[in-house]
């Protein structure tokens, strides 16, 4: 009987197409919007991904990673003297204007790392060596930033170069030359600008005028000391704030700076609201279109369901038939919608570094919601059929 239930559904191509469109559209909207949402939200804590260290120490007033409140250089010594600290390195981050060769300005994220330990250095260099940062006036630029800045540059011949900056190219930060000695791969940030790595001391030079340049301290615990333990000790000993650096959204701890950044943006910006609206919209559109289409499918077949009842099919069988019909439409719609979301995400990825992270959890949630829509549709249909009188089959 259940195979026939499916044949009944698939026999009506037009209605099936409508039903699948509704389900696929809501799956698409829900999956795509949540993926973009998590993509954008993951950009907010990009520095945590690009600058790797086990513990970040900041001023006690800092709430999230993009909002550094400069520390005193002497704080470094205080942290280093905390029991359990293997090493502590200074980190400078700031947004500064870089001047391209063609005279254009570009806002960059300047990252100054400790020249001795290179703590916080980018993980992947596609060109050059990190050690070359010890040469005068040198920087390492991220790949995407190099492409962006390259588009603005002019070649030696004065013509637009239209190709990425590469090792050997130069630009200026506050009238000080910056010579590229390496290209690295990092994740894109919420603020959009290229990542430009240099040494901590040179960063001080690039940001002349700034009285304090110590944004964060990167700390490594000694063997046998857990990051959380050490965070507690640092906070107690210095009155500063110490954070762990886990960036995995589903498992990060309470002290994670990435997590706190995520939630800071969650509560202080309209991002969750606008995306939440889109996801809800997908859900409602899905319920409306699919529920409506499925209902009209049931209405159209009502006399046949009545005939089935007259022929001795109990409501149990009929309910199962309707569930099978609704859930198979739901499954296919889910597949189509998520497939489309993936395809769109893929296109976005090819176009650059998009805010698109389709976590398996998003797929699961979308799956559950789409099946929920199917469930609601089926229940509405079952109620309708249960109210129809088997005797109705004899009437016209």
């Amino acid at each position: 009987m259940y195979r026939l239930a499916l044949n009944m559904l698939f026999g009506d191509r037009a209605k099936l197409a409508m039903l699948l469109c509704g389900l696929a559209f809501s799956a698409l909207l829900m999956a795509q919007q949540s993926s973009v949402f998590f993509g954008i939200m993951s950009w907010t804590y990009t520095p945590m991904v690009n600058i790797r260290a086990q513990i970040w120490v900041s001023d006690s007033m800092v709430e999230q990673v993009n909002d550094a409140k400069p520390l005193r250089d002497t704080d470094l010594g205080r942290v280093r003297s905390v029991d359990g600290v293997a090493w502590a390195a200074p980190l400078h981050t700031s947004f500064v204007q870089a001047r391209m060769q063609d005279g254009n300005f570009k806002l960059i994220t300047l990252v100054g790392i400790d020249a001795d330990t290179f703590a916080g250095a980018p993980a992947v260099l596609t060109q050059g060596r990190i050690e070359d940062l010890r040469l005068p006036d040198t920087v390492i630029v991220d790949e995407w930033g190099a492409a962006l800045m390259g588009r603005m540059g002019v070649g030696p011949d004065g013509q637009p170069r239209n190709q990425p900056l590469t090792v050997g190219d130069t630009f200026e930060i506050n009238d000080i030359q910056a010579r590229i000695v390496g290209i690295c791969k990092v994740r894109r940030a919420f603020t959009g600008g290229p990542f430009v790595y240099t040494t901590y001391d040179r960063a001080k030079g690039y940001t002349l005028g700034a009285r304090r340049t110590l944004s964060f301290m990167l700390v490594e615990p000694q063997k046998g000391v857990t990051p959380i333990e050490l965070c507690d000790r640092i906070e107690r000993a210095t009155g500063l704030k110490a954070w762990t650096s886990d960036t995995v959204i589903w498992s990060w701890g309470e002290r994670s700076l990435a997590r706190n950044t995520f939630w800071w943006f969650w509560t202080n910006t309209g991002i969750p609201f606008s995306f939440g609206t889109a996801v809800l919209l997908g859900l409602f559109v899905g319920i409306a279109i699919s529920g409506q289409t499925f209902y009209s499918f049931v209405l159209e077949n009502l006399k046949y369901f009545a005939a089935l009842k007259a022929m001795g099919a109990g409501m149990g069988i009929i309910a199962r038939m309707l569930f099978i019909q609704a859930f198979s439409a739901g499954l296919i719609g889910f597949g189509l919608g998520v497939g489309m979301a993936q395809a769109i995400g893929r296109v976005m990825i090819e176009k650059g570094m998009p805010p698109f992270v389709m976590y398996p959890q998003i797929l699961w949630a979308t799956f559950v919601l789409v099946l929920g829509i199917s469930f609601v549709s089926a229940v509405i249909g079952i109620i309708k059929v249960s109210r129809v009188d088997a005797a109705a089959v004899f009437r016209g």
Partner: protein
Amino acid sequence: MSPVAPIVAVRASGVDMFFGTPENQVVALKQADFEARRGELIMLVGPSGCGKTTLLSVIAGTLTPQAGTVEVFGQRLDGLGQEELTAFRRKHLGFVFQSFNLIPTLTVVENVMVPLLIQGLANDEAHARAKAMLDQVGLKGREDDRPDGLSGGQQQRVAIARALVHEPPLLICDEPTSALDKDTGAHIMQLVRDLSRSPERCVVVVTHDHRIFRFSDRIAEMEDGRISRVFDDPKLLDASHL
């Protein structure tokens, strides 16, 4: 010697059936008594609105009367719950409707499989039996067509195959020929008669169509919600009577 099976297949006595609210009541059956025997094809005739369909529904257990008793093949229907009535229909009844009621999105053979699948038969077996039944109604080769690709007479053949495939003891037909032309109607009735006649089976046919009276064994005439006359020899009832 096996005991002689009781002759009565369907017995309805003192059946009252009203529709609507007490203030605005439609009386469909009033103290109706009806009897059909095993092995016979009995027709139920009478003017429009006299309660023929209602009586059929009561016999089929799709309507529960306000008064009276209904007994079908020894089973009292009054007192049965919805589930039991459904199970009763599943086993004992076959239906042929005026408007065929074939599911348009299913193939011909799938439509005929329905009663067997409802009874819980496996797909393969149901398919084989439905196919064999379609052979009997002369639709070999049309198994995988959709009903709307068939003529009215062919669709009614499918309906007959569906009504008989699970070999129900009681076959109920409501105006089986009124959507068909004269010759087709006669063919359909011939088919019903050929296929359904068995000593154990009872066939009740509601009709307006005097041209098919000759296919019946007996004719019960209804008037104002009750059986007014029963003709034991349909030849005695010519069209001018009605």
